[in-house]
């Protein structure tokens, strides 16, 4: 069976786009082939800086013949409809159509269309130009003479040549005949830009890949990565160092070379006085080089590893020297930044935050820091943190954002704050909290362990979440510009890993109050007070009320007003609808944030491969806002439901619920209230009633002691009684009173299980 080889040869494709482009090419071509009835055995695509390549093997030489029935108009339909049908079906006259009987709707014409399959190569020649013209590059461009014309071809960078061959292994393949924007497909390509620039001819994938290799091009990106990684490790090892692996950098670098040549350079040891992370960021981000560790000290060594694209005539000496020069200049800058930063104390940077807007609707960074400090101080006692240290840490936590080093390398925020804090003699807990308050940033990130760090990390996240909910900037779909999902997940992980007892609604309320107070106090006068008095809308600028604000009772009144009603905020003192927005009331925020947390918890459990449907079953209970308890309860419930007792009890409870639902609907009433013991007839009824009483009491006691395992164990006792009841007792007894009583008993099963979870929310 024939194979297809396709190569699109262009100027340098951005490294970050290569992998997806190769995938897209394979998918687009194979999808289109399959849609044309050309199924294949296998397909693989590749990318280098200058080419996308695709090989598809095991294609048929021809499309299968197609037989298709096309339904036409009714017999006796108007001439226009008949002509339209004939044209669409490609028939000369109605004699070529058959008539299908339909006694209900009337007989109609049917055309039998037989389409002979075309040679695959012709189909491919049609498909590929369309794919090239509609290729989904993130950014595409026009070039050259043809760019003056409308509809000019767009590609990521100028496209130079196309290889497209099709044929059997044993034969000379044919060139697929097509052209795109004047580029005619052929079988000629080129090797490495500098080492083998000459053109050469290829037949099919096997010789294509081999000839490219001879022409100093490693086609397969994975192979280039393997080479780089292996050579870099070996080079480091040979000099007594250890490569610091970096997958993101490896991916990028492998997209910058067709022929990777790994070399090692060094820099002056005196630069090692700069924190290792800064050296690494400098060398990585600006120079795309790897750094190495000295295994003896575990610290960064004064070496770097670069990946060149050529085997230089001097063995790479000039390349190393050139890179060393650039890295020296970069590190000099970094060292200068670092040393400059050390000259200013972190607290002396605070005043600058007055002039930096955090978010137009949420005020300045200074206001944000003040809120976080107060909230962290409130949280501190709950997590066993020293209040003064916590306040200090919260006050300094964001100051490194104003340093030169963090300005240059945002990824070292927090970390630099710690270094600068330690350098100015701050308490180690305070310094650590500056680094850790951003954490955890993801499932694999370190979770803060020092109570001071925990308090500040919680306060930072809660303040952010509540603030953005207040101004109604929640994440939607894939959009989450303020990383609010990450903040919520981080909070969950903190609570879980550090076993923190925290009432979510109380914390949200605490944060909300601080936001609301700032709205009143910040004195920028952008808050418009609106109130309906005796049916009239009364509005006033807060500055007019400033005197009233000195009156703490009036101020509390404002605060209460915002808490319960929310308000309208006018930006920049302008009273216009464009410059104003709604500030949500506290209840709405808490009601909306809790389900958001439930969703995050579900996502997290799903990612851990645990049951996530149980989260709803637990959150459906009243007053669930202690995250740790929710998590523990979900865990215990999950374990219980894995046992036979659990599964059967769930089935029994669901059965009870279903029966109740039907009967409640029938009778248009509920069956609340305790069943009447005197109306019990069967032993199983009595036993069930007894079991429910016992289990309810035991489970509630256990829950009160936060022992969910024990609560579940108690639940298990309910199972035999429920099973026996459904086995022996007919709920819908002929005696209406007995029936009602039994329905009440069923309702009690449901009620009893609610001691641990709402079973109706659990998926089977």
């Amino acid at each position, binding site marked *: 069976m024939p194979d297809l080889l396709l190569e699109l040869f262009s100027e340098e494709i951005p490294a970050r786009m290569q992998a997806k482009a190769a995938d897209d090419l394979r998918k687009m071509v194979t999808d289109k082939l399959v849609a044309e009835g050309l199924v294949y055995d296998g397909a693989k695509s590749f990318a280098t800086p200058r080419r996308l390549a695709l090989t598809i093997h095991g294609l048929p030489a021809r499309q299968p013949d197609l037989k298709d029935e096309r339904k036409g108009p009714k017999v006796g339909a108007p001439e226009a409809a008949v002509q339209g049908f004939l044209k669409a079906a490609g028939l000369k006259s109605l004699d070529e159509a058959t008539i299908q009987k339909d006694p209900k709707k009337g007989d109609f014409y049917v055309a039998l269309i037989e389409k002979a399959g075309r040679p695959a190569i012709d189909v491919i020649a049609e498909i590929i130009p369309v794919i090239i013209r509609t290729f989904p590059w993130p*950014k595409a461009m026009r070039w050259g003479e043809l760019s003056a014309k409308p509809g000019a071809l767009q590609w990521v960078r100028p496209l130079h040549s196309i290889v497209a061959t099709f044929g059997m292994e044993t034969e000379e393949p044919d060139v697929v005949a097509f052209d795109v924007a004047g580029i005619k497909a052929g079988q000629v390509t080129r090797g490495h830009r500098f080492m083998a620039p000459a053109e050469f001819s290829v037949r099919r994938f096997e010789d294509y890949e081999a000839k490219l290799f001879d022409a100093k091009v490693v086609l397969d990106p994975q192979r280039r990565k393997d080479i780089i990684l292996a050579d870099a490790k070996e080079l480091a090892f040979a000099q007594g160092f250890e490569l610091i692996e970096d997958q993101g950098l490896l991916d990028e670098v492998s997209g910058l070379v067709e022929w990777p040549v790994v070399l090692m350079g060094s820099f002056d040891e005196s630069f090692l006085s700069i924190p290792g992370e800064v050296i690494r960021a400098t060398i990585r981000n600006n120079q795309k080089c790897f750094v190495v560790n000295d295994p003896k000290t575990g610290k960064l060594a004064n070496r770097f590893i670069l990946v060149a694209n050529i085997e230089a005539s001097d063995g790479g000496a000039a390349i190393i020297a050139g890179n060393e020069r650039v890295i020296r200049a970069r590190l000099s800058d970094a060292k200068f930044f670092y040393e400059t930063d050390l000259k200013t104390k972190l607290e002396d940077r605070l005043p600058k935050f007055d002039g930096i807007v955090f978010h137009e609707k949420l005020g300045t960074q200074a206001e944000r820091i003040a809120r976080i400090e107060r909230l962290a101080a409130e949280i501190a006692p709950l997590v066993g943190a020293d209040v003064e240290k916590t306040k200090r840490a919260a006050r300094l936590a964001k100051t490194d954002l104003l340093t030169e080093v963090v300005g240059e390398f945002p990824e070292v925020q927090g970390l630099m704050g710690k270094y600068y804090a330690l350098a100015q003699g701050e308490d180690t807990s305070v310094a650590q909290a500056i680094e850790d308050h951003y954490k955890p940033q993801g499932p694999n990130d370190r979770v803060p362990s020092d109570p001071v760090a925990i308090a500040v990390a919680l306060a930072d996240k809660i303040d952010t979440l509540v603030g953005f909910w207040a101004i109604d900037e929640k994440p939607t779909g894939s959009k989450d510009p303020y990383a609010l999902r990450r903040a919520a997940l981080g909070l969950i992980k903190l609570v879980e890993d550090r076993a923190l007892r925290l009432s979510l609604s109380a914390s949200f309320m605490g944060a909300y109050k601080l936001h609301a107070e700032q709205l009143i106090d910040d004195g920028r006068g952008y808050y418009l007070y609106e109130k309906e008095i005796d049916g009239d809308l009364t509005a006033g600028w807060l500055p007019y009320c400033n005197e009233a604000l000195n009156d703490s009772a009036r101020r509390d009144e404002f605060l209460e007003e915002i808490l319960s009603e929310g308000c309208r905020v006018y930006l920049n003192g302008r009273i216009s609808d464009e410059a104003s927005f709604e500030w949500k009331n506290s209840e709405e925020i808490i009601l909306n944030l809790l389900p958001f947390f439930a969703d995050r918890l579900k996502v997290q459990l799903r990612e851990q491969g645990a049951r996530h449907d149980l989260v709803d079953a637990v959150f459906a209970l009243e007053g669930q806002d202690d995250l740790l308890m929710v998590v523990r309860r979900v865990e215990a419930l999950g374990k219980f439901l894995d046992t036979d007792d659990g599964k059967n009890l769930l089935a029994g409870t669901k059965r009870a619920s279903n029966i109740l639902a039907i009967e409640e609907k029938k009778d248009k009433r509920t069956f609340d209230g305790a069943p009447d013991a005197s109306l019990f007839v069967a032993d199983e009824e009595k036993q069930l009633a007894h079991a429910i009483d016992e289990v309810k009491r035991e489970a509630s006691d256990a829950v009160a002691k936060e022992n969910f395992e024990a609560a579940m164990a108690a639940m298990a006792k309910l199972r035999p009684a429920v099973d026996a009841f459904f086995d022996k007792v007919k709920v819908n007894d002929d005696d209406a009173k007995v029936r009602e009583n039994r329905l009440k008993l069923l309702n009690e099963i449901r009620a009893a299980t609610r001691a641990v979870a709402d079973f109706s929310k659990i998926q089977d």
Partner: protein
Amino acid sequence: MDSTPIHMRPERSFQGLILTLQRYWADHGCVILQPYDMEVGAGTFHPATTLRALGPRHWNAAYVQPSRRPKDGRYGENPNRLQHYYQFQVILKPSPPDIQDLYLKSLAAIGVDAGLHDIRFVEDDWESPTLGAWGLGWECWCDGMEVSQFTYFQQVAGVECAPVAGELTYGLERLAMYVQGVENVYDLNFNGREGADKVTYGDVFLQAEQEYSRHNFEHADTAMLFEQFKMAEGACRKYLEAGWDGGKKDRHLMALPAYDQCIKASHVFNLLDARGVISVTERQSYILRVRELAKACGEAWIHTEAGGV
């Protein structure tokens, strides 16, 4: 190269490097222009690039452009940063199919051997908010150092480029430091002579860097500059308005003088920015005002003879 006297070799002298590039691009069909006689932030602002990139006519030009970035002044104390430096600018419209090869050969002409050095095209998309312009291209790296910018203009002054022009910008000081093997820009050999006859980059420009840094950061008269910005903006609009032939919008007769005022406004804004008297929010609105001027100039240009009418 052998016939070139030693003091004119690109690896020996700054001026030799410039003259070699000029010679190379002249040999490849470019008109060699002289710098534009106004203060600009980059070679792109020269009307030979900004305006000539627009319209259907072929245009190949190369020139040195002194470029001013008031904020980059370091009082002559930083070995790499200058508030006044030279760019070598090449504009080829339409972009020829072998433009990358032409560029690489120009590097060879100034002594960068592609068999010895690691030359790379690393993604770098170019955008100029003040000019309403964007393009796709690369930073060109030589052994890890950025030595040029390479851009296929897609849009300039708010007008689609048809055809697309290729723009090459060489950072001359950086390139010279590289080929001369010098660590500090002020140590560059300017004239390629040795001993008493040697003139360094520092001899030529160090005092200027010190003086202009003082000026840019401390003393530039902001009241005057604010006024100049407004005047340039007003004049630009006035000339644009007056330039429409017979008041009809089909032919423009004064696009170039109007564009001068746009350049002026842009540079004045850069000075005000360096003095730190423009707030973050105002900054955006100033950039927008310059862009509006640039767009209006582009619109006028494509209604001139050189613009394709």
